């Protein structure tokens, strides 16, 4: 979209998010059906989650505990007396004509998360976290005649995290989502597989002139499921609204959809009164009362959270703050790091592998940290082998490529391929003499003062030894041999 860039205008965006996170539990919110992703349609369903007449819900305790965990990890107060409400609307994927949710008395309220953008920290308020059930899924069939309904997802437990309108830019939104994602992964509350829809985001956005305290009309963009789409949608929508205002028009308060392929948002068709959800307490469900004992039990089950872990990594492993931040940004990555780090002495090297070659590989192959083919044990061995001079840094990189494809023990690979560093001075000296004989012009150049050419000769030596020659020895001997030659 051409036109003005909101950053350079007198407008600022005011953004709040509603994040729906699928809970990492085995069974649905109100029945014992499985929550597994990707099953055959309508094979994880029962009378309860398909809204058959007379069926009644019974709440999954673990879902409540996970919601509370998420609340504690985001600095929320836990409401000790909480209710479940019915939220009414009609859609074919919603089997009961209402969604069991929480309205007046959610489980968690009043929290915050700290994010860092451009080196400055910001607190983003969390208004509340409540539990609710997911809806089914609509599949569009090939003939184009039907929409098909699969209720496998119907009743899957979700939490909805509602932020205050504290975010001001796509960078802040991005930082918030990543931080939240990390925390949900750490606590085990959600697997955050966005491509499977286990983290979905609605964006509430308005713009106003900088410095104004009132809010403009806001739009809601629903159901975004990738960080990239969220960032793009925020940027597009802020710009669109600013342009509307710039043209002297007002922004329509409406719900919009994001078309990621075209990179635009567009208004959804809405019926009058459709946003009146007529919440009331679900008479089939009883209140949730959280006493001290239960709350303490949940508290004590919370793992170390990313901010604490980052501090510990700096202290314990002597990682630079930036590196510690990167590694602890993913629970799986930090777990991997610790697994490897406890098996070797050079922790910085482990960190470098993770931030360098491994991250690169992950990006290239689009796989999750949990699927890294190299085990932490083998990575630790590789670090040890490099550190003790058995292989060079360069060879280590070759070995790593083999490890990625086979997850074999690096020592084995080195032996098998004869990649061990050559420390034998006489062997190296022979190669050097041969190189000097083969490159009389280079030798001549050096004699005439072009010392840079030594690098070329060293390169030749390394090539002849397949990179295995100990660089220190090569360096020392090449000077010795040149001296000898010049003195002859």
């Amino acid at each position, binding site marked *: 979209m051409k036109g003005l860039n909101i950053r350079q205008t007198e407008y600022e965006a005011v953004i709040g998010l509603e994040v729906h996170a699928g809970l990492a539990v085995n069974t649905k919110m109100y029945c014992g059906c499985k929550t597994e992703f990707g099953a055959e349609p309508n094979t994880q369903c029962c009378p309860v989650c*398909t809204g058959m007449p*007379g069926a009644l819900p019974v709440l999954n305790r673990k879902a409540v505990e996970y919601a509370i965990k998420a609340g504690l990890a985001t600095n929320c107060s836990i409401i000790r007396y909480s209710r479940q409400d019915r939220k009414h609307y009609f859609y074919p994927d919603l089997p009961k004509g209402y969604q069991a949710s929480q309205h007046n008395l959610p489980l968690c309220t009043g929290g915050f998360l700290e994010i860092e953008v451009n080196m400055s920290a910001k607190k983003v308020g969390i208004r509340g976290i409540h539990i609710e059930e997911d809806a089914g899924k609509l599949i569009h069939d090939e003939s184009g005649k039907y929409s098909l309904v699969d209720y496998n997802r119907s009743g899957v437990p979700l939490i909805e995290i509602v932020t205050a309108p504290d975010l001001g830019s796509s960078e802040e939104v991005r930082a918030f989502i990543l931080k939240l994602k990390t925390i949900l992964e750490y606590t085990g509350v959600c697997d955050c597989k966005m491509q499977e829809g286990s983290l979905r985001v609605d964006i509430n956005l308005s713009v106003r002139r900088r410095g104004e305290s009132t809010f403009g009309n806001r739009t809601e963009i629903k159901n975004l499921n990738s960080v990239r789409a969220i960032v793009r949608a925020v940027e597009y929508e802020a710009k669109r609204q600013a342009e509307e205002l710039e043209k002297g028009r007002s922004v329509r308060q409406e719900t919009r959809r994001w078309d990621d392929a075209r990179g635009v948002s567009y208004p959804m068709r809405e019926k009058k009164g459709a946003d009146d959800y007529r919440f009331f307490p679900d008479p089939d469900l009883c209140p949730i009362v959280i006493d001290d004992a239960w709350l303490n039990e949940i508290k004590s089950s919370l793992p170390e959270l990313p901010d604490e872990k980052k501090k510990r990594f700096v202290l314990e492993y002597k990682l630079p703050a930036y590196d510690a931040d990167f590694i602890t940004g993913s629970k799986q990555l930090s777990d991997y790091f610790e697994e490897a780090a406890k098996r070797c002495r050079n922790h910085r090297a482990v960190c470098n592998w993770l931030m360098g070659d491994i991250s690169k590989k992950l990006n290239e192959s689009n796989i999750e940290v949990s699927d890294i083919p190299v085990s932490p044990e083998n990575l630790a061995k590789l670090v040890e082998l490099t550190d003790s001079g058995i292989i060079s840094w360069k060879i280590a990189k070759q070995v790593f490529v083999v490890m990625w494809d086979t997850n074999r023990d690096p020592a084995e690979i080195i032996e098998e391929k004869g990649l061990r560093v050559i420390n034998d001075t006489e062997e190296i000296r022979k190669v050097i003499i041969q190189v000097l004989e083969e490159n009389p012009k280079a030798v001549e150049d050096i004699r005439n003062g072009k010392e840079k050419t030594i690098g070329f000769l060293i390169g030749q030596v390394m090539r002849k030894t397949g990179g295995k020659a100990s660089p220190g020895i090569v360096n020392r001997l090449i000077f010795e041999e040149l001296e000898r030659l010049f003195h002859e």
Partner: protein
Amino acid sequence: MELTRLTVSETLKKIKGKEIGIAELVSAYLDQIENLNKTIGAYITVCREDCEKRAEDIQNKLDTGENLPLAGIPAALADNIVTRGVLTTCASKMLHNFIPPYDSTVSEKLRNSGAVLLGKLNMDEFSAGNSNENSYYGPVKNPWDFERVPGGSNGGAAAAVAANMACFAVGSDACGSLRQPASFCGVVGLKPTYGLVSRYGLIAFASSFEQIGPITRSVEDAAVVLNAIAGHDPKDSVSAKSRHPDYTVFLNNDIKGIRMGLPKEYIGTGIQADVRQRLFEALKVFESMGAVVEEVSFPMTEYAVSAYYILSSVEAASNLGRYDGIRYGYRAEHYPDAGDLYKKTRSEGFGFGVKRTIMLGTYFTGRDCYDSFYKKALKARRLVTEDFEKAFDKVDIIVCPTVPVTAFRAGEKADDPIGMHMSYVYTVAANIAGFCAISVPNGTDSKGLPTGLQLIGKPFDEGTLLKAAHAFEKNTRFDKPFDVIC
């Protein structure tokens, strides 16, 4: 000997004493249904083949010494109680073809007790009504006078038991929907304390008010059936956790010293003179047995029906949201898109009374009405409940007529939704507060139509309630409908 005239207890005795066979018994009931159902319309579905086969199974079990508390007793369920494999319509076009792939807890319990399911009973569509004139399958007639309504919503259940078409029936009571028809048809109707009987598989109308209970020919039968259906169910979140006693133990005809409260607001205007007369005669019976009757006051009485009207509509509108023609039941034939599919299906599938309830319930929780109607009604609910709690500090049981009038003529009140609800003025409080209550026959009015006496008990004190009702029954002798009509 007329097999279909016997109570549950009498029938059990004869079955266990091998005086009668279950097949013979079931076939007697099937004959009775065959003869009368066309006229009375109590049944929507009759499970002829199923129950003949089942009679055989139970007889075999019995002959091999198995002990089943309701062995071979021919029973019927209201058609809002889900029965696996048996058509369950809720008396609505919306579910005209619904064959549930699962069972209600109550149906399961009755089967495990050895009862034989004769069929599914007519009722007001989705429980919305109190005269059983609002069924997709046609109205039910009162066995005492075919011109009159049997009451509702469980007119089918009361009529079937009164006309010997079932040994007992089980239905649900949201504001008097078992007790009022029991009163109109001269049989016993029990609404247990909220949470005593599982609602799993009860097609929901007013979830926070309704309880499943029996309609029987005697108080003892009510106790026997309650024994079979009561108890905690992990599938119903608001089901009570405590264990229930054997209710037959309470039936000892000893009510000396029991304190009974007569609500003075219930005997003022609007009550039929001979209904009031029967009430005072009943109080004399109680006093003659050593009970102490005193006056109590329920100043909130006039708000009870209004609060119920609002809250039940709200819950019903929500509960009826699932009928959309997608997963089960009726689907409209012509629908250009999914939105029309919904609207057409619901408009064609629901009767007018149900649509009115849905519209009202939707209206009461809308943005503009939430506080003035919905929330206000919730507060009224508390005030009505507090009236009763205060009374129960002084007395053990509340005694009053079940309905201020006897059965009215069909069509008489069809167009008067508010007036119709006034027939629930004495029964609704027990649902508002969740207390247990029973209606027992209390003679007839000047036209020879039955009237009921209602007793209301403390929560989970069905023991005392049944004891008092049983003592009253044993010390009175009223006509049974079969003496009149059959």
